């Protein structure tokens, strides 16, 4: 009986929430930019930049308040006629190279860029050294000619060897 009441109340409350909630949700919708071409440019640039708060998301993906602010900054600046290059410079000035998903080529980033190549070269070198060593081991005559003769003699002496 009590459970029934609870259910009835829950349904009532949920219905009310749905009725009341609707205008509030409508208000939260992101304003669609009047200029889709501009919006495309903003998004394209925002996917190149890192969200500082979440760090593994791009500015385009993140809904952190700072990411929203920075996207708005990008939009405002583009509207004022700034190029992609200008805006990237603006971001780097404030947040450093860390905001770039494609870090610039610098002394401090050399290892970052060359690391994968170095690892692959190291792996290839190790592989070749190993293969060369194995080939040398295989090529080396396992037995001297005297030993070979002895083996042949022993095999010939073996009973049953002749039968086959």
């Amino acid at each position, binding site marked *: 009986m009590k459970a029934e009441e609870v259910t009835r109340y829950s349904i009532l409350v949920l219905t009310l929430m749905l009725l009341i909630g609707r205008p509030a949700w409508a208000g939260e919708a992101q304003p669609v930019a009047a200029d889709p071409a501009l919006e495309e440019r903003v998004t394209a640039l925002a996917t190149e930049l890192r969200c*500082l*708060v979440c*760090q593994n998301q791009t500015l385009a993906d993140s809904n952190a*308040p*700072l990411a929203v*602010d*920075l996207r708005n*900054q990008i939009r405002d600046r583009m509207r004022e006629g700034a190029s992609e290059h200008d805006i990237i410079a603006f971001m*780097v*000035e*404030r*947040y*450093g*190279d*860390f905001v770039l998903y494609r870090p610039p080529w610098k002394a401090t980033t050399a290892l970052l860029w060359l690391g994968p190549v170095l690892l692959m070269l190291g792996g290839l070198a190790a592989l070749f050294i190993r293969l060369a060593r194995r080939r040398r081991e295989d090529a080396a005559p396992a037995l001297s000619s005297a030993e070979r003769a002895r083996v042949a003699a022993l095999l010939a002496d073996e009973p049953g060897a002749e039968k086959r």
Partner: protein
Amino acid sequence: MNRYLLPLGVFAGLVLLLGVGLSLNPREVPSPLIGKPAPTFELPQLHEPQKRFAPAQMKGTVWVLNVWASWCAACRDEHPVLADFARSGAAPLYGLNYKDKRDDAIAWLKRYGDPYAASVVDADGRIGIDYGVYGVPETYVIDKQGVIRYKRIGPVTPAILKDKIVPLITELNRG
């Protein structure tokens, strides 16, 4: 014996590298603003909006700018440390009230105490972006020429205050 030496060496190297990596804090992004002039602004003060504050007014003084907000939990942790700092009188402490509501901010200062000589209002976070703020609280030490000399991202701890900020202020005041 020898054949195990190389893999062991590689393993030890990896452990060392990853160990160092683990001890680093990825949240601490080195600020490109160190050694650069503090971005200018002119903003209304929190308590007296008709009065404005600009970093240019601080020329000739070593001062500290702390970015805070009433919604920021870590700011509350940091608060007693800043209060101690303000009481010591090592350098004037100004607040940048970041993306906050004026009433909330004033109530917060009333509740926990106001260590700031003044706080300015950065309601939309524009100035915060100029200062490269991404994790409130943040703290900047600015020298007599208006150059940023130190930036702390996250709450100032008593250890950082004692080992970094206060010695730096003393040094900057001497120079």
